[in-house]
């Protein structure tokens, strides 16, 4: 199975491989959902046992009562926001990177201004601004009489997409520039046009080189999504926070949340390491 996958991976351009990966992430839970859920329950009880053993007066009951809510409501939201914002952010980021490298001054200035602006602002500030401004901007653009109904999730998704795109753009630009100029020249010499050279020669190599950095940025995004608490959205941390306030179990819930964030981020970074070895191009 592994060798079949890696054979497929080599023939497909990298974006397709990423798409397949995402598809697995989305489809697998539907098929294996119930099984995984039982497993998850066991993992949770192990974590609770360890925490109860380590910390005096630790009330594990509150977690046993609430973990299903935390994962089904909170973590689902967090993962959805992370995956959507990553996919959209990479697409927008690639477009911005191509604008910067296009050699057309107006496009270059726009993309440079965009990335500089977003990279110079704190994320929380951008989240606030968009949450309060977007309904008015939308209303003005579509010529509505009242502010547009955007919704907290859409507002957060748009914010994270626009914000992360600035970072992804810089990663993509470095990735594209890391491909030797002769590669593009060889593509042009064979009669390929600009879009074919980019899509068939340069970007597939750039994506492969950049995949570890892109995924590392995604892990950062995964943690940053917790900032949606300022919009009172129920992401994983938000859900934990709600239970903590309701039951007066702040230590238990915030410790548990920290363990889960750590476990997910850590296993993702292990995955990045393995992926790095597998997609590397022998030069």
């Amino acid at each position: 199975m592994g060798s079949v996958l890696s054979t497929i991976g080599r023939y497909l351009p990298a974006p397709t491989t990423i798409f397949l990966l995402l598809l697995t992430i989305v489809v697998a839970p539907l098929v294996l959902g119930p099984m995984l859920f039982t497993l998850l329950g066991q993992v949770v009880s192990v974590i609770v046992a360890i925490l109860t053993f380590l910390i005096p007066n630790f009330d594990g009951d509150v977690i046993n009562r609430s973990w299903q809510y935390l994962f089904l409501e909170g973590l689902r939201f967090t993962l959805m926001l992370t995956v959507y914002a990553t996919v959209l952010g990479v697409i927008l980021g690639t477009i911005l990177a191509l604008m910067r490298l296009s050699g057309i001054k107006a496009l270059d200035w726009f993309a440079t201004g965009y990335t500089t602006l977003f990279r110079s602002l704190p994320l929380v500030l951008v989240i606030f601004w968009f949450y309060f401004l977007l309904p008015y901007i939308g209303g003005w653009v579509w010529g509505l009489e009242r502010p547009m109904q955007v919704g907290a999730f859409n507002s957060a998704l748009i914010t994270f997409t626009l914000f992360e795109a600035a970072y992804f753009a810089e990663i993509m630009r470095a990735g594209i520039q890391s491909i030797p100029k002769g590669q593009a020249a060889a593509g042009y010499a064979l009669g390929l046009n600009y879009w074919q050279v980019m899509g068939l020669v340069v970007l597939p190599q750039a994506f492969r080189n950049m995949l570890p950095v892109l995924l590392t940025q995604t892990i950062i995004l995964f943690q940053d999504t917790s900032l949606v608490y300022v919009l009172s959205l129920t992401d994983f941390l938000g859900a934990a926070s709600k239970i903590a306030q309701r039951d007066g179990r702040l230590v238990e819930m915030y410790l548990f949340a920290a363990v889960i964030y750590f476990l997910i981020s850590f296993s993702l970074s292990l995955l990045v390491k393995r992926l790095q070895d597998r997609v590397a191009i022998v030069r």
Partner: protein
Amino acid sequence: MPMIEIKNVSKAYGAFKVLTNCTTNVEKGDVVVVCGPSGSGKSTLIKTVNGLEPFQAGDIVVDGISLSDARTNLPKLRSRVGMVFQNFELFPHLSILDNLCLAQEKVLNRNRSEAEIKGKALLDRVGLIAQAEKFPGQLSGGQQQRVAIARALAMDPICMLFDEPTSALDPEMVNEVLDVMVALAKEGMTMMVVTHEMGFARKVADRVIFMDRGEIVEDAKQTEFFGQPRSERAQQFLSKILQH
């Protein structure tokens, strides 16, 4: 009508002149070797022929099509002119066979099986059919350059440009690449070759062009060039590289 006509071509980066008033022709079926000291503009000249390097004055006409004409479809012209680079420039993310098929499918719109038949026949010809499924990084420099030649030939080019094809190779791999080029020349392929391999020039070149500081200093029949170069600069160059 010559296959390649280079007419009074000049190119400059600011005040620095890279090419000055270069004029020469390559007839159909001719092999023309371009040599000269490094920085003489020979690589730049050959790259202007398929429009990889723009030029500011003069014109280049390939098979009757002018490069300075804004209406010229550059990708189409390039697909008919094969080019081999100093650093091979195979696509490292594609298998050897896919390297040969990519432009056949995307530019010439051949279907996959046609492209594969053509690709495999050419790999067989350069002696690398056994490596078809490997990736460029798994091949030696000499093998990679032979693949690069096959990749250019897969497009059925009307002429071939070689930009120092053996300069990046270890010495023991130079001959396997030159052998392929000699065979190609003997079949009547129109070739323009930038190289320091004077043995190759003696064996197959019809004409030798000697360049220095962006100018074509000498443009002579091969026998005349090696027998009695007219210019002093060419004489000096030859005595330097033929000493050993």
